[in-house]
């Protein structure tokens, strides 16, 4: 069990180690968020809820919200909308305001990388190679604060999920998760992702999830 803290809780006096989700005042480190303390390395407070704040290099799943030549305006499950310039399709393409929707239309889902976030919170995206999601599979959304647990230490949790659920699973930084597989496999994968999200604040999670998936498989085998 991790230590749960609320804003204003004093968590340390080692101000040099103060990390994300904390603030320093009068020689103490205080919690800036409601969450759990992680003091491996720097002292951090990992929030268990909250909105996605884009950072350069993040890979996100976005939804085309609007077309405003020469940009697509993209909803990235953040307080801020992002934009994607038409040049992302290469200079050879003749894209004008009349045919932008033939490349990407409203409600299309894309995989993109955050290239730049300026002080006015204007966010520029770049397309990833396999950017189009084409309505195949299922998209679920979790709080972006749960993403590290779904991936796990050096990818241990996500590897477990992919193996046992027999699905393609892509976890974007903004909490959107794309799952592809058979209907039953996708059901198990989404159920498991939900379980991880709900128990993100507990320790020994990877082991418990492994047990959960095994018990599910054996149940199914017997039935």
């Amino acid at each position, binding site marked *: 069990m991790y230590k749960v803290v609320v*804003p204003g809780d004093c968590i340390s006096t080692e101000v040099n180690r103060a990390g994300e989700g904390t603030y320093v005042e009068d020689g103490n480190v205080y919690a800036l968020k*409601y969450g759990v303390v992680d003091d491996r390395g720097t002292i951090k407070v990992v929030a268990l809820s909250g909105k996605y704040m884009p950072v350069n290099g993040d890979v996100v799943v976005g939804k085309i919200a609007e077309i405003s030549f020469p940009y697509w305006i993209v909803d990235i499950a953040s307080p801020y909308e992002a934009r994607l310039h038409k040049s992302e399709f290469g200079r050879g393409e003749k894209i004008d305001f009349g045919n932008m929707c033939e490349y990407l239309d409203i409600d299309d889902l894309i995989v993109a990388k955050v290239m730049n976030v300026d002080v006015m919170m204007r966010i520029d995206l770049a397309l990833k190679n396999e950017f189009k999601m084409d309505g195949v599979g299922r998209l679920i959304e979790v709080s972006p604060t749960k993403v590290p647990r779904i991936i796990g230490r050096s990818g241990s949790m996500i590897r477990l999920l992919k193996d046992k659920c027999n699905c393609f699973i892509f976890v974007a930084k903004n909490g959107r998760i794309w799952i592809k597989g058979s209907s039953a496999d996708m059901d198990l994968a989404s159920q498991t992702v939900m379980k991880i999200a709900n128990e993100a604040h507990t320790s020994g999670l990877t082991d418990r999830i492994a047990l959960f998936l095994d018990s599910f498989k054996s149940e199914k085998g017997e039935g």
Partner: protein
Amino acid sequence: MKEEKIELIKDGKRLSGRGFEELRPIKIDVGVLKRADGSCYFELGNNKALAAVYGPREMHPRHFQNAKMAVVKYRYNMAPFSVDDRKRPGPDRRSQEISMVSRKALDPVILRELYPKTAIEVYVEVLQSDAGTRTAGINAASVALADAGIPMKDLVSSVAIGKIDGEVVLDLDAKEDNFGEADMPVAMIARTNTITLLQMDGRLKKEEFERGLKIAMTGCRKIYELQRAALVEKYSKSGNEE
């Protein structure tokens, strides 16, 4: 409405049997609403208040955006059936003023500069009212903000003091409020003893004010402990379900 005088203190006790510096029973539930980003149900005696937080999200209309920081919106609203005489639905001057002072009670702890151009929306619904609804609303809102993952330096805790039958007492109920001589809601950051809301109506001597403020601050510290415990409880509970 001050009707005929009634005795509010008998044999050194209040009508409810409470001591002068005793809070009404408090119940706090965190994360009670599905659609909201953060939520809290707060009961203070017969007061029932529910708070929801949405955001930070895009600010509409755009010209209300602040390019440097998030704008906090706070809406205090009473359900029509929450009071003795049915309240006409919708905002009135009283609820608008309460919304404003409540927002200002919370503003100092929220790191608004982390979310320029956005709105952080706080909605408080009073489902049953028995004096002290604005303090119940602020307590609920503060917990709901934390539950929504909003970065904030501290929680805010709030309670009122008042004067009844010449005595300064903590946390007036409706009868005490109607027949009392003064009512003074206070909100405070418990860790730093910083007052973020202070209002008073009625009449108090300077010494009474000073004593009242001390009693209110002690009350806020007790409420802070309960708010904190409720938040910690939320994650302890779901971990033990396994």
